[in-house]
């Protein structure tokens, strides 16, 4: 209620008392102003609070929005949907120099909606004319059976797609597909393995690895973050191709039913080539056989899955160990007259093997007796331990889906008899990758290497297995096999190849061995002056029929092939033949004692 400025009672009283009524009015005006000011102040305070709250809220919203923007990936509008088309759903595989070994192609799958079809019978006939592998009657039955959806073909070429378009049938539809392509055909087929469609939808289908590195590294190849980066293999395509070509020729010449070969870098454990013959085309991977020996299938990777008793190539390990333990020197002369007994086994040599040999000669001439004598001196405990450290007791850690399944077979209990047979490579089964890694360690200065199919740019040397001096002596010993021993036919001037041959009889199904079926292997490294590559070549059931009777030992079958292989791949690997090494680099050991 508004109070009057000049309230009558007060004015009258003031007039009676002789005071100034204006003072009363002034006082009342002052009070009223005070009151108004007070009210205005309250309103202003309220407004300020409201504004503060509004500002705080707005700033909070802006701040939160900025936070959200900062946290999300910077994507331009409109790029998101294009990206799905750009990126392949599986990374490429390239060789060590970046040459494509597996890539993707966009193609189309053909499916039908029979209910939308105008002329199902005519379309079935037209489709059968385009695709000779389709049957017109079967298709017509599918199209008229009342089903609403029928797959016709998984992949189409652009020409086929155009011809299907030209049928003009609205019930035939295309779905986008990505297809795995191996442009090099059967080269490195066993390494790559193969791929096929996984879950299929109308618009897309998963491409999944079915074997080899495609399956072992499936996760990596499909990782969306790594799709743009190709997988670099350690394989060198030209070496792989040359090795395949020469090995195939050698296999034909030596009447072998299969062959396998490896080239490994002695310092990194990278496999520069891995060949298994017969092979297959990964673009059209055959189905695994259900009958017969799976080992005869082209899908079988002899270099990895071929776990065999490797025979005499294993002799280098007891000899290296004897040198390492200081039991003998390469020049030590030994009486290797047989037969001798070791546990339950009787060990004898080939009749033509000399009776007295140096330790280098035991390797060069491949004396069973000499090796067993050295193994007996070592004792079976240390022998087992040494082979274990060389990796012969575990599957090789190679990036192939078949690797964990290729388990080596080792004696369950180590006795004097097993120690003797293992010394010359029987009673222990391993694959060529085991052998190549172990040889790499023997010649590279004595350090462990881990085999791999992925490119490594730096040496990857592991723990020490033998002393550098022992490794140097082994290089000389292995070299003597090629200069004076069983592998003389493998000599290529200037490459200083060294190695060891081995001819192992294949076990027969009923037990025991078949003496006319052998696996002939050569394992070695070059150049022995400063080893860079391990070369392992193995021929299955090879025989040289050029002489009066069939010759099956590795010296006659595998070794000539090794010579051809080395001449071909040595220059490709960039190894320059050295005219003459200094005597100090490579010791020259006499095989026969004077």
């Amino acid at each position, binding site marked *: 209620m508004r109070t009057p400025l000049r309230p009558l009672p007060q004015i009258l009283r003031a007039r009676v008392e002789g005071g100034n009524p204006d003072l009363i009015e002034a006082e009342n005006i002052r009070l009223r102003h005070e009151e108004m000011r007070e009210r205005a102040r309250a309103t202003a305070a309220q407004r300020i609070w409201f504004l503060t709250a509004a500002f705080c809220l707005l700033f909070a919203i802006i701040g939160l929005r900025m936070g959200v923007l900062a946290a999300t990936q910077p994507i*331009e509008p409109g790029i998101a949907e294009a990206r799905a088309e750009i990126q392949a759903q599986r990374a490429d595989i390239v060789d060590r120099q970046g040459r494509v070994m597996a890539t993707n192609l966009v193609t189309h799958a053909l499916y039908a909606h029979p209910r939308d079809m105008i002329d199902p019978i005519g379309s079935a006939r037209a489709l059968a004319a385009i695709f000779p592998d389709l049957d017109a009657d079967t298709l017509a039955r599918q199209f008229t059976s009342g089903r609403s959806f029928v797959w016709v073909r998984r992949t189409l070429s652009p020409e086929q797609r155009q011809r299907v378009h030209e049928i003009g049938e609205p019930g035939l539809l295309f779905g986008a597909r990505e297809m795995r392509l191996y442009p090099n055909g059967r080269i490195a087929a066993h390494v790559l393995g193969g791929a096929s469609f996984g879950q299929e939808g109308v618009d897309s289908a998963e491409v999944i690895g079915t074997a080899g590195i495609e399956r072992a590294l499936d996760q990596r190849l499909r990782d969306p973050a790594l799709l743009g980066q190709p997988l670099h293999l350690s394989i060198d395509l*030209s070496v792989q191709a040359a090795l395949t070509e020469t090995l195939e020729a050698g296999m034909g010449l030596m009447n072998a039913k299969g062959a396998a070969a490896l080239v490994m870098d002695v310092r990194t454990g990278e496999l520069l080539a891995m060949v298994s013959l017969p092979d297959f085309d990964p673009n059209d991977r055959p189905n695994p056989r259900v009958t017969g020996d799976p080992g005869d299938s082209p899908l079988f990777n002899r270099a990895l899955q071929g776990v065999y008793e490797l025979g005499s190539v294993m002799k280098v390990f007891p000899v290296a160990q004897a040198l390492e333990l200081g039991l003998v020197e390469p020049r030590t002369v030994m009486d290797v007259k047989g037969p001798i007994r070791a546990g339950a086994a009787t060990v004898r040599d080939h009749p033509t093997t000399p009776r007295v040999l140096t330790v280098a000669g035991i390797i060069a001439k491949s004396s069973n007796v000499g090796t067993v004598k050295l193994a007996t001196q070592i004792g079976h405990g240390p022998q087992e331990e040494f082979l274990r450290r060389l990796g012969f007791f575990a599957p090789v850690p190679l990036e192939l889906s078949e690797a964990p399944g290729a388990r080596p077979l080792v004696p369950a209990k180590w006795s004097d008899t097993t120690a003797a047979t293992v010394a010359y490579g029987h009673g222990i089964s391993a694959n060529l990758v085991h052998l190549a890694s172990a040889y790499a360690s023997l010649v590279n200065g004595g350090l462990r290497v881990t085999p791999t199919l992925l490119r490594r740019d730096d040496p990857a040397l592991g723990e020490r297995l033998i002393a550098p001096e022992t490794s140097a002596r082994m290089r000389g010993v292995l070299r003597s096999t090629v200069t004076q021993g069983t592998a003389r036919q493998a000599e290529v001037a200037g490459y200083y190849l060294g190695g060891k041959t081995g001819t192992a009889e294949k076990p027969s199904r009923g037990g025991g061995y078949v003496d006319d079926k052998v696996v002939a292997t050569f394992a070695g490294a070059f150049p022995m002056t400063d080893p860079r590559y391990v070369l392992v070549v193995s021929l299955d059931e090879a025989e040289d029929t050029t002489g009066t009777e069939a010759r099956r030992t590795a010296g006659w079958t595998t070794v000539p092939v090794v010579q051809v292989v080395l001449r071909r791949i040595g220059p490709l690997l960039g190894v320059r033949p050295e005219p003459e090494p200094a005597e100090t680099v490579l010791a020259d050991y006499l095989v026969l004692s004077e």
Partner: protein
Amino acid sequence: MRTLLILLAGFGVLTLAFWAYRENYATQQALREVKALQREVAALREAIAVNRAEWAYLNRPDRLAELVVANVGELPLFAITPEQFAALSNLPLPSLVPDEGMAAEPGDP
């Protein structure tokens, strides 16, 4: 003075509104262009992938070997052999370069 200010402000608002209107349409146009370009990039990427695959297919070792055999008349190409490597000192040339630096080169990959 006050009227002038109001007029100026009104004019400013109109200008800004016009500018915003134009920017809006320009942005939409730019987005459409970006989309078209993205599609083109995608198509080109796909074409590159096809060309790379084709290049790898045409350069596969089997085919190159066949071509070498087929064209041996015009282009006598043969596999490289170890005999083709030589030290510089073995060449019948006046020795210009010291052999040291060259010796290691051909051996390195």
